[in-house]
């Protein structure tokens, strides 16, 4: 068993990065995620593992530092919160287009605009449907506990390198600021250039040697046929992700008449709501998408064949509910799909969700 600690979600992102052999972190302060860089700076990993930590002049610069470092085959990351991720959108699009592995952590806060520093899940569309320009996808992981904040750092990097694609941990201020018991991972050595090459091929700009052609990291294809070729290659990766990387969890869905669909902190609240609803004799279950892209369409479609209705519970105006509707529609099911959520940094209570189940699902 690994070392047990009581840690904040944000702090554990930093600790997990050091332990999983991350080569570099580039970031810019923004509430509610500043503890990530603060923890890294206090830990001084450059002495311990050789990991580089640098405070950039802006989010624009940090994501481009990630681009440069990732382009040399290094395991690098950044973290920010919603407005900062908007600033990074350009760089993320370039990283996806140039097919570079990296990890981006978004500790969401309420928006639009400067918004609020309180937790939110309003960046679902931004994370799963684009954010920046062009046809690209991120691998999006949604932790629901401090333990998963720890676990998904390593998992995010694994998937990023497997697909040479940016991975995102999409969390929020609630999980970032919350402390829970966490079992830390063992230290993994940082990868050597040789290991990266044998695992993922020779693509990184590690310095041109006589035994290979020079490598170029770029997302520029002025010839349309070449551009489409690149687009197709990206789409094939996304199809493979949909086939191989869907992760989700179900809770009391076996005999459920109604199923809540929720991710991250909303899923935690809904788990309690399921308990409360069951105590009232309502057969309610919960499906928690762990990967938001690829989205667990099939398990929802399967459930749609036997349940009466779904309710997406989100801390936004109803974003993921569209993906639930698509999945249910694909199953040609007549199950109702509805949504309940709060915005503005307000976290719904388990009791509110139960009321919504009664009013929006059962009575309707």
């Amino acid at each position: 068993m690994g070392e047990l600690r009581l840690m904040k979600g944000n702090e554990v992102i930093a600790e997990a990065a050091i332990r999983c052999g991350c080569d570099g972190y580039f970031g810019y302060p923004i509430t509610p995620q500043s503890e990530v860089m603060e923890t890294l700076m206090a830990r001084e990993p450059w002495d311990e593992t050789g990991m580089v930590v640098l405070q950039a002049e802006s989010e624009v610069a940090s994501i481009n530092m990630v681009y440069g470092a990732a382009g040399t085959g290094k395991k690098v990351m950044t973290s920010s919160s919603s407005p900062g991720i908007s600033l990074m959108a350009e760089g993320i699009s370039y990283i996806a287009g140039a097919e570079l592995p990296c990890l981006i952590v978004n500790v969401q806060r309420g928006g639009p605009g400067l918004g609020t520093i309180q937790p939110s899940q309003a960046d679902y569309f931004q994370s799963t449907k684009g954010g920046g320009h062009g046809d690209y996808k991120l691998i999006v992981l949604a932790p629901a506990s401090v333990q998963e904040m720890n676990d998904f750092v390593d998992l995010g990097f694994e998937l990023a390198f497997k697909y040479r694609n940016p991975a995102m941990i999409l969390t929020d201020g609630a999980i970032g600021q919350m402390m829970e018991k966490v079992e830390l991972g063992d230290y993994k050595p940082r990868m050597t250039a040789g290991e990266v090459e044998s695992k993922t091929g020779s693509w990184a700009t590690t310095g041109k040697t006589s035994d290979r052609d020079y490598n170029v990291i770029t997302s520029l294809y002025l010839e349309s046929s070449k551009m489409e070729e690149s687009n197709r290659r990206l789409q094939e990766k996304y199809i493979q992700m949909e086939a191989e990387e869907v992760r989700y969890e179900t809770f009391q869905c076996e005999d459920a008449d109604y199923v809540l669909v929720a991710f991250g902190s909303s899923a935690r609240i809904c788990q309690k709501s399921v308990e409360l609803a069951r105590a009232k004799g309502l057969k309610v279950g919960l499906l928690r998408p762990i990967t938001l892209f690829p989205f667990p369409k099939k398990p929802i479609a399967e459930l749609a064949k036997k349940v009466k209705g779904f309710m997406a519970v989100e801390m936004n105006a109803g974003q993921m509910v569209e993906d639930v509707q698509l999945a249910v529609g694909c199953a040609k099911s007549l199950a109702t799909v509805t949504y309940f959520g709060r915005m503005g940094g307000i976290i719904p209570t388990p009791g509110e969700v139960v009321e919504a189940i009664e009013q929006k699902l059962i009575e309707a």
Partner: protein
Amino acid sequence: MTEEIIIAGFGGQGVLSMGKILAYSGVMQDQEVTWFPSYGPEMRGGTANVTVIMSDNRISSPILHEFDTAIILNQQSMDKFEKTVKAGGVLLYDPNGIVHPPTRTDINVYKIEGTKIAADLGNVKTFNMVVLGAYLKAKPVVKMESIKKGLEKSLPERHHKLIPLNLQAIDAGQEKLETVNLVS
């Protein structure tokens, strides 16, 4: 066993650190724990509250609308949280600054003169430990040895010399807990 607690008072009363020591004590005896603070502008000088959940099972929601125990350290928090205690639950408060004491008769109400006791101990900063001691007397959810370990884990090493004083404060709190009998 699951214990869901809200600790609420002013910023600076040590609300968050009391919750942290309690949570760490839970970790020390192999429980699942969640510590969920209010954060943001209200952190600066205003009210502060923290939800602590300790359980033998996986913890679901960190956000709760009702609690097994409310530890209330100012009037605003009394107004907000008295009504959130589950029937049969516990409300512990420090009467210092409380204008409207609790009135519910379906819960167990306790009080602790934390401010006064801490002053008598010669260190007002031990206030939160006095209250923690009182809570543990009313509801012994963690063992004293876990509390000791929790203190060691959550205090930076340079403050370890203060552990005996903190334990003394916890003892004083345990000793001086008062049961409030409200007649319905």
